[in-house]
């Protein structure tokens, strides 16, 4: 569920339960206990980040657990962004773009 209006963050045992539900919902499994522990830690950080985004958002958005909650931000952008490896879309349009008009 979304974090808007909930208690600040679950307790450790609760965290494991929330993570277990996440694994069931998104069919996640991890090859060894070390990877499980690492993903649980990332999951906890993402929950905390979601809470912060909730507080910062000026609109009606709700942030919480998604299918990407066990990924670091770097992994998320690398896997799902459109940046070509090594290139960024930082191309600037500022030079003379106003004259371009429609096409």
């Amino acid at each position, binding site marked *: 569920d979304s974090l808007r209006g909930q208690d600040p963050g679950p307790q450790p045992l609760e965290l494991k339960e929330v993570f277990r539900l996440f694994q069931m919902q998104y069919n996640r499994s991890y090859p060894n206990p070390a990877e499980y522990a690492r993903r649980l830690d990332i999951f906890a950080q993402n929950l905390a980040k979601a809470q912060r985004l909730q507080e910062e958002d000026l609109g009606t958005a709700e*942030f*919480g657990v998604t*299918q990407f*909650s066990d990924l670091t931000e770097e992994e998320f*952008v690398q*896997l799902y962004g*459109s940046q070509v490896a090594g290139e960024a879309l930082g191309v600037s349009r500022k030079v003379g773009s106003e004259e371009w008009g429609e096409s």
Partner: protein
Amino acid sequence: EPQTCDWRKVGTISPVRDQRNCNCCWAMAAAGNIEALWAIKFRHFVEVSVQQLLDCDRCGNGCRGGFVWDAFLTVLNNSGLASEKDYPFNGSGKTHRCLAKKYKKVAWIQDFIILQACEQSMARHLATEGPITVTINMTLLQQYQKGVIKATPTTCDPTQVDHSVLLVGFGKTKLVEGRQGKAASFGSHARPRRSMAYWILKNSWGPQWGEEGYFRLHRGSNTCGITKFPVTARVDKPKKQHQVSCPP
């Protein structure tokens, strides 16, 4: 420019796709743009091949990222796209294995245009011509569940865009002041006092993500850099415009 616009309501937007572990949001946004424009302009409903865009892309990056304008160049170079059914998406990019010649083309474009970086003219084009691809900063989307995201340049840098999606509509939601003085959706059964304009965007992370595969961004504050690269294909022949003559 109407107050609200939602191309989904007339069935012109194809189903939400899932890019899985392939960096091909740029190809899915371009494909969604072409599908929507063919449905709007010609009432011809077709799903086009994203895999052809990946395989035949001139940059040869396949599933490692790309740009919407390169997808449109690929369509122009290939003289059109095969159908999704004939040339299905397999989530891997075998670069330089272009099978375009093997299949019949089901959709093509005349050219593509980069629109002015202005939310008002984008809204006008969206309402009068059809959906537009945009490229935004995706950082807030990892934890997004629903509602209208209204970010600041600090929480979502509008100059660092890295995810291409399809703009399919815009609208306004009534707001009431929430308990913490923040915006809240109308559901709080209290007297509405403000409204918030938003964009409706089609993502490519499957229908289970966000609002059934879609999400909403605040309209009017260039949230997450939505005005940086508004690009759209053109599928109908340009209308004859009145000739102008330069003064002697």
